[in-house]
């Protein structure tokens, strides 16, 4: 199988799918040219706890599954904890991704960080740019098998 059962489960039944009207922060990463865009909405309470998450994704199966998994992993966590989410953790939680799909997990991590950044910006909270940088960069394999 291309994907683990976990990936297929999150792809088929994405958790926290949808938009959010009154988000505390919104992150949008990726671009349509490359075939993946993730939009992540966070609701954050006074204690800095993420009480709700929603997401929309344009992208392949692993892109949808990675965002879904990331939302599950940060829901109920503090913003600080969410910033510690690495793409590696997402991949592990999904029981692995094919190597040419690792960039999807990177995007998911970036989406979380972008949403937190938006939250910080909206609220004038100072932050260290470094904590908002992606933990890892997957190689973008240029393997063109194309159609058969």
């Amino acid at each position, binding site marked *: 199988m291309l994907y683990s059962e976990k990936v297929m489960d999150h792809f088929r039944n994405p958790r926290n799918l949808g938009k959010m009207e009154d988000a505390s922060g919104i992150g949008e990463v990726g671009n349509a040219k*490359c075939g993946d*865009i993730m939009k992540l909405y966070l609701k954050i309470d006074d204690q800095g706890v993420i009480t709700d998450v929603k997401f929309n994704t344009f992208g*392949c199966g692993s*892109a949808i599954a990675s965002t879904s998994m990331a939302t599950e992993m940060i829901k109920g966590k503090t913003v600080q904890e969410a910033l510690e989410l690495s793409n590696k953790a997402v991949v592990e939680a999904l029981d692995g991704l094919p190597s040419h799909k690792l960039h999807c997990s990177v995007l998911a991590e970036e989406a979380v960080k972008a949403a937190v950044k938006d939250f910080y910006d909206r609220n004038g909270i100072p932050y260290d740019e470094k904590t908002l940088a992606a933990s890892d960069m997957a190689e973008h394999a240029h393997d063109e*098998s194309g*159609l058969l």
Partner: protein
Amino acid sequence: MYIYADNAATTKPSQTAIDAMVSCLKEVYGNPSSLHSAGQKAAEVLFQARVDVAQAIGADFNEIYFTSGGSEADNQAIRSAALTGARRGKKHLVSTKIEHHAVLHTLDKLENEGFEVTLLEVGPDGIVKVEDVEKAIRPDTALVTIMYANNEIGTIQPITEIAALCREKKVVFHTDAVQAVGHLPINVHDQQIDMLSLSGHKFHGPRGVGALYVRKGIPLRNLIEGGAQERGKRAGTENLPAIVGMAAALKEAVANMEENSKTVTALRDRLIKGLSHIDHSRLNGDPVKRLPGNVNFVFEGIEGESLLLLLDDKGIAASSGSACTSGSLDPSHVLLSIGLPHEVAHGSLRLSLDESMTEEEIDYIVNAVPEVVAYLRDISPVWEDLVKGDKDYVIQ
């Protein structure tokens, strides 16, 4: 229910092909190069398969070289013509931007080795213009190689005209007819084709076997060196079970071509009509000059792989030119060549039909696709922007 609508990727071997293979595996186990009767029986079976394949495309039996498939045939034809040309100081090769990678990557490699390659553009209809081929041919052109029909968008190229032009200009003409053989009527002699590649598994024959037709008088160089099989031009013990399976499937495909073509074209057009109701979508490739079984759509705002996987959950096997299906970031070079912007090209869907399919299956697809497209648009931030008017639709 499982509807297999990915016949352009590979077809199910027909019962005829399987039967031919099994009887060969069990009874014709000799090596055709062996002199004993087991070997000579194999040699006869091989000969008959050669005659059958030749007849199916209007060639002579000694113009057929069996290969391990379409890719090998393409590689050998192009490399051979290039090296032969180079000996005469001709180091220019002409092709199109929408060829299969077996052609494009061979040309890339030759370019690295010092050849000059002209890749012609195709129009938005996915068809190359004969006058563009004419303009591209130079005194030092060693080869023109243009596919008979495209594997992604199904467009049929003006091969007869291009071949005639090449004959007139005395340039060798090769066509990758992997998607066409068994589906479209082909007569290599009448059509003045010099070299043609075909592959068994695209017309309900087995995988791992193909053939290269090379007109008498056109030199052929080896890609694989060794024994004297295939008149010294392709070494390796002949894959006899696969060869007879391919010959049987091809004979059957040619015998039923008219009828199959009618059936499949009707199914195709029913499917195209059904899918055309989806807004902000477009049929890729010419609506008429296309393979009977090919349907290729693009749906704005969604990505192809998720579309495929969700259709698969609904029991529909299809394919996409989305980059994500291949691990690349760039979507299909064919879709880009017909002018689709990257973001839209990611949202393509290929459904390739065969004669075993029914109207009920088509109608099932016609119902399923819009549902999945609507769901994916609903969860797509790209679609959100389009609907909100933050971005303009590419497809009206």
